[in-house]
């Protein structure tokens, strides 16, 4: 995972709530067994069917910060949604509320999710619609979003922030505690089920 410290780019205003992961990338793109190259599936239905969809508008073509309405990333647990956003050039998604699994997947994939109150999202929408070239800076170190003369603080749990800043892989961190895992396993009740061997019905 790439480290995330601070990012400056332009923002795309996605004025929609309840953007589910089926919209971010439909299931037919999930048949692939690779981890990259999902940009062709990103919002493909809206890009195909809605000529004025925000990501079809040339002024937002280079956007790297997506600003969405509440309940972004609901539905399926597909991490392909996070990969597609990264592959499509996004490093940050800002929304008043994220679905839990999407947000969690983002921290593993290196996509920063920033929760801002609805009023701040509205203000940011208005600002980038007025000036699509407006630079927006998302500073994870300082925990703030800055554009024009506006600075909005955001919160993120310190551990996730540290992992993102360092670009650390969770599995490697957990493997430092293998002794704890082995000790835990030694005291699990014997009657807990095992999938092996397969037992007859």
């Amino acid at each position: 995972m790439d480290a995330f410290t601070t990012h400056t780019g332009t923002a795309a205003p996605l004025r929609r709530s309840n953007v589910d992961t089926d919209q971010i990338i439909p299931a037919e793109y999930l048949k692939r067994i690779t981890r990259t190259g999902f940009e062709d599936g990103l919002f493909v239905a809206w890009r195909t069917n809605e000529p004025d969809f925000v990501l079809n508008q040339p002024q937002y073509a280079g956007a790297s910060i997506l600003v969405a309405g509440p309940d972004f990333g609901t539905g399926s647990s597909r991490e392909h949604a996070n990969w597609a956003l990264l592959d499509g050039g996004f490093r940050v998604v800002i929304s008043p509320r994220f679905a839990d699994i999407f947000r969690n997947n983002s921290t593993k994939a290196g996509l920063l999710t920033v929760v801002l109150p609805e009023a701040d999202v509205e203000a940011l929408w208005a600002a980038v619609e007025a000036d699509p070239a407006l630079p927006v800076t998302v500073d994870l170190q300082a925990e703030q979003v800055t554009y024009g003369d506006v600075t909005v603080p955001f919160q993120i749990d310190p551990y996730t922030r540290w992992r993102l800043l360092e670009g650390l892989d969770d599995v490697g961190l957990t493997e430092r505690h293998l002794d704890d895992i082995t000790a835990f396993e030694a005291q699990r009740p014997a009657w807990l089920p095992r999938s092996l061997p397969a037992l007859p019905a």
Partner: protein
Amino acid sequence: MGQTLAQKVYESHVVRRTAGEPDLLYIDLHLVHEVTSPQAFDGLRAAGRRVRRPDLTMATEDHNVPTLDILSPIADPVSRAQVEALRRNAAEFGIRLAPMGDRDQGIVHVIGPQLGLTQPGMTIVCGDSHTSTHGAFGALAFGIGTSEVEHVLATQTLPQYPAKQMSVTVDGELPAGVSAKDVILAVIAEIGTGGGQGHVIEYRGSAIEALSMEARMTICNMSIEAGARAGLIAPDQTTFDFLQGRPHAPQGADWDAAVAHWSTLRTDPDAVFDREVHIDAASLTPYVTWGTNPGQGLPIGASVPDPAQIADENERRAAESALAYMGLTAGTPLREIEVDTVFLGSCTNGRIEDLRVAAALLAGKHVDPNTRMLVVPGSVGVKQQAEAEGLDRVFIDAGAEWRGAGCSMCLGMNPDQLKPGERSASTSNRNFQGRQGKGGRTHLVSPAVAAATALTGRLTAPADLEMAGV
């Protein structure tokens, strides 16, 4: 202060707790399917890691599988390659796999309980958001992404923070024709798709206690549609009776020890929930969705809402775009909406009880000539049981299609899909745009409403059939 059921299960699985870091939580069962696992196995290979506990891991093929010609190779080369990747990975890492054609194959959330691998008090994860289904047994079960699948494969643990606690209490008696599906659709309509965000939901109350295990699974399954990663129900005699004698359930003295432990898995009287929701069972009617998120549902007697009447701007905009996508006009009675397809199946409603309810309504009758009905058992086990009970004949004689087991028309990853503009009444869990096929329009319904709708060709409650003399 007392603990909730979810807190008890969580706390008993904490491997390591250190200030300033997430807890390391032990995972008792990891369910795997072909869609969200290939990149995780690639990650293991790239790092030279093995699967720590193949004996706590179980894989099956479900999302991509066709429900016709299930013994032939999959025709779609991309789907076939994904299924073949799972077979290679399962063989290489020593994981048990129930492939197409196997007696244990089926939707991952149907086979866990069927095999007795899902038990009270366990932690269960899967790279699938409907893992919440297993909460019906009093397990803490939740969906994860592919990076976490890799983490669990490698370490049998996950870094986690404790969730907030929500209770949904459903008291009273459900009216005839009103089912678990209607309860959960009503809950989601009430609290919204983000209402459970950050929470685990415990479903409680006399109406929940009266439900079968199949019905409890339907409710817990759709916790994710209410925004909660996990939903659960305290285990009781209904749970124990369902489990006893299943292949992987404990036996003899182990059974007694397990039941003694399971019986302690209840929320303490003095436990505190962060949020409490109360629903009066007697007030519920069959629910159907009209929009493109699961929170956009109403009693079947209602009409398509008018977005202009919705005060919240986000909600209003969502309703406008939903009506445009669904091809619906505000004010149209829901009962007048005609459908092309009825889908009975999925991890929400593809179990034997769901098939029985639908078959009872269809027996001796015929599906509307302009409507196609697809009946897809959730697993090979469900299919065999239904056939032993003669339900397959009931469906076939009624003009429905009787298929092989899989996720089928719940999502557009296999040949069972809606065509653009087609409209379905579906017992699945998501009415998202394009979910059942590009341009497809989905109304989420219960198995009873699905069967009644198949008979009339428009959204219909079971009680309507008697009045209409169908």
